[in-house]
């Protein structure tokens, strides 16, 4: 499957006013096509930086990132980012936002209207097509952002703590929504979060990053049965064990220097 991301010996250095800060150092991992990988780490470990590097918004200082063998230089429509603060265009309606990527890629009008409508319905936004972002709640804005990114069909979804600003019930509802659609869409997902439960609940693998400078501490396979409802999953032994393992690994990092 397409959407294979390979990060090798990645380094990102910021230099300002004579001081050099290493945000990411010697980080290697891969996400296979269609895989759901979460990245967790203590705050300031450079996990958002990693996402922006893969997105092509930032230029790596060393090492390489490839998508299906092609090196990443700058943003491209094979990758779609979902931001924590939604980053919706306030001057466009819900439909206008979802249409944006389709317009930019020269899809003809009839097809893009149909595609937009499909993703609006997929994210349960029907009836809100003509609303502007300022009229929507946080949860709805994030669903619009997801619909906008999915609509132009990137192979890889890059999600930067997308549910971090939402309250618990809403976050869980969106997590389940994301899992449902991920099953059908066959996309690689790189999901940044600081929430261990979220990472274990959603992902097939979790990359744990070290504290400053960010590099790989561990990659854990999350082998749990997700066929049942949320209550069954989160109370299963496999889930609880995994969660504790990830938590302990992360906890070592957060307490190391404190």
């Amino acid at each position, binding site marked *: 499957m397409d959407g294979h991301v390979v990060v090798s010996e990645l380094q990102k250095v910021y230099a300002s006013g004579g001081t050099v800060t290493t945000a990411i150092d010697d980080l290697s991992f891969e996400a296979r096509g269609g895989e759901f990988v979460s990245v967790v780490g203590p705050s300031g470990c450079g996990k958002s930086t990693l996402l*922006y590097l893969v*997105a*092509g*918004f930032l230029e790596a200082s060393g090492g390489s990132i490839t998508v299906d063998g092609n090196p990443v230089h*700058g*943003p*491209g*429509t094979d*990758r*779609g*980012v979902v*931001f924590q*603060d939604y*980053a919706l*265009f*306030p*001057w*466009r*309606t819900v439909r206008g936002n979802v249409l*944006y*990527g389709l317009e*930019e*890629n020269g899809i003809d009008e009839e097809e893009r209207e149909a595609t937009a409508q499909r993703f609006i319905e997929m994210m349960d936004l029907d009836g809100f097509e003509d609303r*502007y*972002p*300022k009229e929507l709640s946080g949860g709805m804005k994030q669903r619009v952002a997801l619909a*906008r990114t999915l609509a*132009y069909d*990137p192979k890889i979804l890059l999600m930067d703590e997308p549910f971090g600003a939402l309250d618990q019930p809403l976050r869980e509802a969106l997590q389940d929504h994301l899992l449902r659609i991920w099953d059908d869409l066959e996309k690689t997902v790189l999901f940044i979060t600081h929430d261990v439960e979220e990472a274990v609940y959603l992902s097939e693998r979790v990359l744990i990053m070290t504290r400053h400078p960010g590099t790989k501490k561990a990659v854990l396979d999350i082998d749990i049965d997700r066929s049942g409802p949320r209550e069954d999953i989160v109370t299963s032994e496999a889930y609880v064990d995994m969660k504790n393992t990830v938590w302990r690994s992360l906890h070592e990092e957060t307490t190391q220097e404190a």
Partner: protein
Amino acid sequence: MAGATAELSTALPEPVRAAGRFVVRWFPLVILAFLWDVVSGVVGAAVLPPPTVVLTTLWGMLSSGAVLPDLGVSLYRVVWGLALSIAVGVLLGIGMARSETVEDFFEVFLGMLYPVPKTALVPLAILWLGRGTSMAILIIFLACLLPIVLNSYNAAQVVDQNLIWSARMMGTSDRAILWKIVIPSTIPDIVTGIRQAIPIAFIALTGAELIGASNGMGAIILSAGQLGTYPRMFAAIVLISATAFLALRGFDRLERRVFVWV
């Protein structure tokens, strides 16, 4: 006490509250008219015509239609001066925010233009353009330019990076970002700039017409003053103030309708 009043007013039905606010808003004008009338009685109607006389004169000027060509030409100058300042100001402001060279090129010039009273430039403008409409438009343009440049400059400097990245990842080219993201992002601030510029446009208009025009409201004010027809002079002042007030109100209404997303 203030708390008690607030409670009382929220308990009142909406139409009564609206009527109350209307009275509070317009009452200062009634007080002003009353004081004006009293002073007029003291100093004499020849020096300060009473408000009733001024309003009667104004009504006469409007109902006969005699003032309409002058009002029309004044509005024409304001609209063109404003339109030019918006077109140039937005480009300049955004250009300065996005390019260091553009910023360096205009910074000193605009910084020095800012504190100059624009009416001080009227004699020079007359020298270049002659008396009348072009000159007035130039003065209004210069006066309105700065608030619009500053507002669009500030807004274009703080365009949300995530919006730009979002557009880039969806395939928008670096050059198209300006039209598709930067300019729409700055619209709320451009609107603020225009709102600040409207009263300034009328101030500049009147100044320019007082000195350098044979028609328009400023010219009426000057000629009536020189001829000693003070009711006419005051009527023209009231008319231009009311027009500026209505222009701003009209703009706010239009803005709420056009930019519903702001």
